[in-house]
């Protein structure tokens, strides 16, 4: 990768959308750079994927390894371990600044920066990250052997975390604000372990502990009743927020801070495209993100060949 050149295309993010876009861009012989914190995005945390066609069952990490293998066949440049902090529109280029202090330029950009785990935003959470507060049950569950832990969240990721934790923890509190929305099969599996206590109708008030998590205070949503639980770990699985901070001054976002795109993955700015979980496209699924990535790359290609100043040679 080079800072002193102008690429045809910058792809921000290397999850299913970004990696698929990279393959399509390579097949169109676009000079492309992919910038991403990691390869795989949120997908690598999926313990099992059963909805990606061609695979009846595959782990998220293995699926993304296959994506990477496919992309690496082509002469695509990568800057991995780097995160885009700013997207800027210049006279004839788009520029991105990164946490490693680099600046890259290109004629077109695809934003496929995905989402990250949503925080609870309660006292104690930030201070105790890595000290018992975790957003990755797949990674950290084995560290909580014989401890009591709490999982916050009501969807499939939360109940998957509950089930993973029952393999190690002594007791798992499943805390949900309203009611459990996860698939009944996951709930049934959790119940069968006899280790899970479901606490529905509670909001988290604070996390307690100094050097490590020692407890959690939850509050009944309907009336003023607080309950303190002694737990050594709190796993937060309450959804995700889009990684769009670097682009707020350039593209239009919706109320959920997702990038608004049309059905060609075009944003409000000509030459800037977006795909995958970072956009307002409905259904955050791996297969949907991959399809959107393909569309974005093809849209970017047609944009580049039609640029009045020549852009790409056909």
């Amino acid at each position, binding site marked *: 990768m080079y800072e002193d050149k102008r690429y045809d295309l910058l792809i921000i993010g290397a999850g299913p959308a970004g990696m698929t876009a990279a393959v399509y861009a390579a097949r169109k012989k676009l000079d492309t750079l992919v910038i991403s914190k*990691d390869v*795989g995005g949120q997908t*690598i*945390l999926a*313990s099992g994927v059963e909805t990606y066609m061609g695979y009846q069952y595959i782990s*998220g*990490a293995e699926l993304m390894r296959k994506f990477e293998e496919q992309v690496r066949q082509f002469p695509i440049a990568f800057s*991995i*371990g*780097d995160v885009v902090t700013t997207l800027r529109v210049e006279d004839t280029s788009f520029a991105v600044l990164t946490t*490693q202090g680099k600046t890259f330029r290109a004629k077109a950009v695809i934003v496929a920066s995905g989402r990250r785990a949503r925080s609870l935003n309660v006292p104690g959470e930030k201070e105790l*990250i*890595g*000290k*018992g507060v*975790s957003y*990755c049950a*797949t*990674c*950290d*569950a*084995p*560290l909580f*052997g014989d401890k009591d832990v709490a999982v916050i969240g009501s969807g499939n990721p939360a109940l998957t975390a509950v089930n993973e934790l029952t393999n190690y923890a002594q007791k798992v509190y499943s805390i949900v604000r309203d009611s459990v929305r996860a698939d009944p099969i996951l709930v049934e599996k959790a119940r069968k372990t006899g280790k899970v206590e479901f606490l529905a109708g509670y909001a988290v008030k604070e996390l307690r502990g100094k*050097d*490590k*998590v020692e407890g959690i205070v939850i509050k009944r949503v309907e009336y003023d009743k607080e309950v303190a639980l002694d737990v050594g*770990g709190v796993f937060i699985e309450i959804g995700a927020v889009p990684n769009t901070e670097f682009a707020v001054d350039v593209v239009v976002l919706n109320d959920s801070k997702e990038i608004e795109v049309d059905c060609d993955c075009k944003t409000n700015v000509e030459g800037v495209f977006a795909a995958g979980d970072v956009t307002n496209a409905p259904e955050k699924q791996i297969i949907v993100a991959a399809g959107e990535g393909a569309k974005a790359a093809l849209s970017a290609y047609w944009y580049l060949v039609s640029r009045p100043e020549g852009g790409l040679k056909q």
Partner: protein
Amino acid sequence: MPLLPDKVRQQVEEGFKDLKEPVNLKVFTQEFECPTCGENHNLMDEVAKISAKISIEIYDFVADEDEVEAYKIDKIPATVVEGKEDYGIRFYGVPNGYEFTTLIEAIRMVSQGDSMLSPKTRKKLKSLSKPVHIQVLITPTCPYCASAVNMAHRMAVESELITADMIETVEFPYLTNKYNVFAVPKVVINETIEFDGALPESDFLKHVMKAGEQ
């Protein structure tokens, strides 16, 4: 029954095609009071059989005290991945799950004698003057851990002053407690520097250099 499925063995075989120098797996084990030593021994046996370039030596943690001391092994199961020299690569615990790929990577790396680090990092590591001991505490289910272990091993290959250990936390709970591990990967360098997460090469290097200065 083999630990490695046929498909995995075939993939590893493919990956071992470009091995250059011979690789020796030194496995430190004990028949009693080590619940995972047997599994580690079997896994290493299976891996060694995949390529004629890989040999395996088994040492008893108690009886073979000379080797234990020479390789500074302080817990078992332990595996040293040695090429034409001991680059300082250690696996403590069974490299299962995502860590299996770091074992394969370590074998390839020592065989080729190339850390694959950037020229900038290589130059910087040459200025190290003190020994640096990197411990990467992991769980086998952590997708990010493998890249942290791999980075530590690369640095060990590059600098003779660096030793890099993978430590499987579930097998060594006393280290999980000692280092207060609540999230993985957790990296501990020279007992003085600690950080969480798989950092990019340049950031990882900063911590290593800082530890080397202290």
